[in-house]
């Protein structure tokens, strides 16, 4: 039963560079056919984890099995099962897009006809057909990233590592990348991706692990992670401080802020809780200027777990 055996199983992975501990007892399981996101700020150890799991560097300790093969004992079997697309595109600048893909087809020992068919299909699927005869050095960032991923897919990998697949891409290219990743998962592939964008993990991943200073500080679905931290509230803004006073007395709890004339009342944002808030406002005889429901997002989660914030997205 392939769907039950984890595609990636890691226990106690450790890695240091000199005195600097990069990974400190790293455990995780990724079921086959799912998407796993390793979330963390720059320098958390995400890329090191990918480099170890993709056989590029050796860990100092711990075990890992990828697609059923032991990382240390059968690296070539692992390599045959995986595909890796790194943070900085590893494409051959002196070859055209098509030649890059043919190079991969040759290295996977596809016969000529099969290789050509596969290359043409990937060029079409990644919207690179028109640029196929141009040198990769002339490609835009988004095109390079698509070519990079297309090269990874030539060998039909069962497990794909994506190291920050959308870092540095414009919003449109990012959407395209997300769509491609979703289609891969629909085709039964297991995805291990790293990201510093909370939104990306939320959008793509079945399960998320938060990595901070080489340790996984929390893991679960996006929903579970959000539930694990307090922070859900209803925010009420009033016309003046007099109204705010009345409301604060009526609720007896919550956090008031005189400057913005707002009151934050704890609540999960459900209909029942919201109705209770409205009933109490009516009982006190006041109307707020504005009411907004705030559910905790992964930013709150990250802050609550690590005490510092992640990289904020600016390219919105």
């Amino acid at each position, binding site marked *: 039963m392939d769907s039950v055996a984890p595609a990636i199983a890691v226990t106690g992975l450790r890695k240091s560079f000199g005195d600097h501990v990069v990974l400190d007892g790293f455990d995780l399981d990724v079921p086959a056919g799912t998407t796993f996101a390793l979330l963390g700020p720059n320098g958390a150890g995400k890329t090191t984890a990918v480099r170890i799991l993709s*056989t*590029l*560097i050796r860990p100092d300790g711990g075990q890992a099995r990828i697609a059923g093969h032991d990382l240390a004992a059968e690296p070539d079997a692992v*390599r045959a099962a995986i595909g890796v697309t790194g943070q900085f595109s*590893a494409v*051959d600048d002196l*070859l055209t897009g098509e030649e890059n893909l043919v190079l991969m087809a040759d*290295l996977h020992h596809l016969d000529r006809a099969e290789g050509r068919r596969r290359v043409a299909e990937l060029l079409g699927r990644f919207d690179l057909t028109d640029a196929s005869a141009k040198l990769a050095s002339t490609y835009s960032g988004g095109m390079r990233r698509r070519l990079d991923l297309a090269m990874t897919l030539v060998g039909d990998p069962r497990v794909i590592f994506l190291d920050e697949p959308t870092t540095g891409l414009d919003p449109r290219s990012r959407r395209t990348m997300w769509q491609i990743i979703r289609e891969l998962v629909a085709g039964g592939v297991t995805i291990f991706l790293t990201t510093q964008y909370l939104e990306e993990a939320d959008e793509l991943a079945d399960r998320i692990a938060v990595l901070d200073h080489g340790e996984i500080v929390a893991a679960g679905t996006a929903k579970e992670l959000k539930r694990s931290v307090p922070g859900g509230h209803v925010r009420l803004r009033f016309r003046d401080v007099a109204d705010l006073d009345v409301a604060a007395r009526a609720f007896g709890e919550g956090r008031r802020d005189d400057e913005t004339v707002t009151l934050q009342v704890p609540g999960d944002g459900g209909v029942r809780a919201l109705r209770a808030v409205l009933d109490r406002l009516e009982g006190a005889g006041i109307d707020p200027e504005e009411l907004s429901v705030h559910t905790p997002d992964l930013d709150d989660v990250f802050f609550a777990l690590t005490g510092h914030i992640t990289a904020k997205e600016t390219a919105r």
Partner: protein
Amino acid sequence: MSDATTMVRRNFRHTLRNPGAMIMTIALPVVLLLLFVGVFGGALTAGLGTATQGRGYIDYLVAGILLMTVGYGATTTAMAVNRDMTAGIIARFRTMAISRASVLTGHVVGSTVRTLVSAVLVVAVALLLGFRPGGDPLRWLGAFGILALLTLALTWLGVAVGLAAKTAEGTAPFTFAVQLLPFLSSAFVSPDAMSGAVRWFAAHEPFTPIIDALRGLLLGTPVAGYGLVAVGWCVGLALAGYFWARALFRRDPR
């Protein structure tokens, strides 16, 4: 084996795509040949005295220019290997189930062929300029053999330098060495005409016996003991380059 063939093909494509590499390995030695024959030829012939053995300066010069050709080729290889390392394509190859060293084999075979082609071109231009080799085909074959061995040696050294350097600029000392050492050898003038320490250095550095052997074989003059010394240096440098490159490549990448 088929992975290595794929990598050699990749390397040939690169050569065609990268005019800089073409100029470096093919045009530059030819330019150097023209420069030394046309500009310095007359003056240097006078200075060489008996070393020309009554022949023209070009007959003396060709062996040295061939060595420069091999040096330029190795320099190009060092930069190409370094680009592969820093651009991350070698990292991609390492995560694939392919023959590990195939990418290096591709560089070495590609570079050796490229260099030998430019060597043939250099000889052709030299013939047009009046170069008249002596000896017999067997000796020319010997000259080709030494040239091929030297190419292999400097190319493996170039590969190791490319792997060791953190950036393209890091290959500069190697470039400097392979371009400067021929001037401090018997390539252009006889070491007998040099002064003190320089003469001692020129007489003992590896390029001098290699050039002397090459020259002897091309012109049909006695090779004496140079032949064995030349082959010894080439094999030694080749092994050093090969094992250095292998150790660097086996190491975990940064």
